[in-house]
């Protein structure tokens, strides 16, 4: 089992993702009047399940929010370097969740609880949106979009994914990925200079922290174990997977 760019998984949602990518790129390209378009794009997203089976009401707490339109200002080169690292981590997450979906679909993870399947599907989509947002920043500044994960991290994740035998093992690997992403965003927020880039990183970091809480709960751990989020697991742009102080033992 390995984590590769998952064309098969992407094909399943290619139309939806093309829509989202187009919307995201459009948001970065259109300064004024884009909010309504973004809201429409958000309204066009597929409904997700609720506990009671009812779809969340539009505009209610819990309904998808439209991102405000970033101003158009060329970020400094250092910001774009950080954006590229962020995009590569998002690509790794997209690939990993895609591979997990494929593995679940093939029965390689045994019986997958419904909540785990829903988590993998939705979180994979959210990381795709994050990837599109960062690639929008890069391409708007004349840089190439990122389509590959960090090679060293991908190799590390591949090795770990090969040992995953069940949903709990997949959740542990996902927890590690989310911790690295959240810590990297936290580190980036302190270093970025462009207000737009800061706002974007700031809007994504909480989502990764929310993912962490659900994974901790799924693994039987307290969902908010830290008083302060730290940069301990931040990815520097090279090297192996950072150590995971909060990781439970492999099941």
């Amino acid at each position: 089992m390995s984590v590769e760019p998952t064309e098969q998984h992407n094909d399943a949602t290619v139309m939806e993702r093309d829509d989202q990518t187009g919307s995201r790129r459009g948001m970065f390209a259109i300064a004024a009047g884009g909010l309504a378009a973004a809201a429409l794009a958000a309204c066009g997203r597929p409904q997700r399940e609720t506990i009671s089976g009812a779809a969340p009401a539009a505009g209610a707490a819990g309904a998808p929010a439209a991102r405000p339109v970033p101003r158009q200002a060329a970020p400094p080169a250092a910001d774009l370097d950080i954006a590229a690292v962020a995009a590569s981590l998002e690509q790794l997450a997209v690939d990993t969740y895609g591979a997990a979906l494929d593995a679940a679909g093939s029965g390689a993870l045994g019986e997958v609880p419904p909540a785990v399947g829903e988590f993998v599907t939705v979180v994979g989509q959210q990381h795709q949106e994050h990837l599109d947002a960062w690639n929008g920043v890069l391409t708007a500044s004349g840089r190439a979009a990122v389509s590959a994960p960090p090679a060293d991290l991908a190799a590390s994740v591949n090795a770990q994914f090969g040992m995953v035998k069940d949903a709990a093992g997949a959740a542990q690997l996902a927890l590690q990925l989310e911790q690295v992403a959240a810590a990297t965003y936290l580190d980036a927020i302190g270093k970025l200079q462009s207000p737009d880039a800061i706002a974007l990183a700031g809007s994504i970091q909480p989502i990764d922290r929310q993912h962490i809480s659900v994974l901790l709960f799924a693994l039987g751990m307290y969902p908010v174990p830290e008083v302060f989020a730290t940069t301990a697991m931040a990815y520097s742009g090279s090297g192996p997977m950072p150590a995971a102080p909060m990781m439970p033992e492999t099941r």
Partner: protein
Amino acid sequence: MTVNDRAMRSLVEESQDLQVDAMRNVELCTAELREVGASRAGQEIDQDEIRAYALGRRKLLKAGGFGIGVLASSGLLATGFGQRVAAIVNRPTQASTPVDIQIFQTASSLENLAVATYGAALQLPFIQEQAVVKTFAETTMMQHAEHSAAFNAQTEALGGQRQDGTNPKYTPIVEEAKPTLTDALAVAKLAATVEEVAQDTYLANLTLVSDGQKRLLFASVMGVETQHLATLRAVIALIEGGAPQLIAIPTDLAALPAAAGSVAFPAAFEEPNLASPPEEGALS
């Protein structure tokens, strides 16, 4: 609701040990700010800072920040309540106090409000009877107290007056809500609102504070408030879905409904829709 209380407390205690490094970062940040504060002592207020803040604030308001967008979309802006909130939001920053100090004072006021809210919840008999909810309320209250202390340390390091009071805008709202707290669902919904206001405020502050160290502190605390919010969203959904018995540790993963896997993060991006403006909890 069921819980292995000893196991969960052990997990909480273990996790608290991880805070040593985080607190070291906060202390480093405070020491740096103390030097900045000392160097600023006796100096005039930086009007460029005020102007830069005002510009960023106007842009946030235009984007629907500080709660105005929510009030407008819900039809509340035209009501008396909405007008009072709008008046607070539209009040210009106090030119006599550095913006960063106002931001930290308001942050402390929100943390103090959260401490008071969870403190009130812990007085309720049905919270005392539910071990998981009680442990969450106690732990979260402690975490908010730590956040308030961190923000007050920054305020004092910058030469400002510590804020030990609760947020003036939301305190009466919480007080009015107290008689309606008749079950865990009502408590969870009120707590979720308080957490969302804090999260959104710190998100907005990321582009308002003057340097990366202060951004780092706000992002660090925001990362924890958003986890409180995510947990409460899941709790609310499980109660409303008729499955409160699943709010338990160890987790019955197989029994959780599919929606439990995504209800905690309803959007791919968080927005500062409920953000409090810097002067809201500032001391004059």
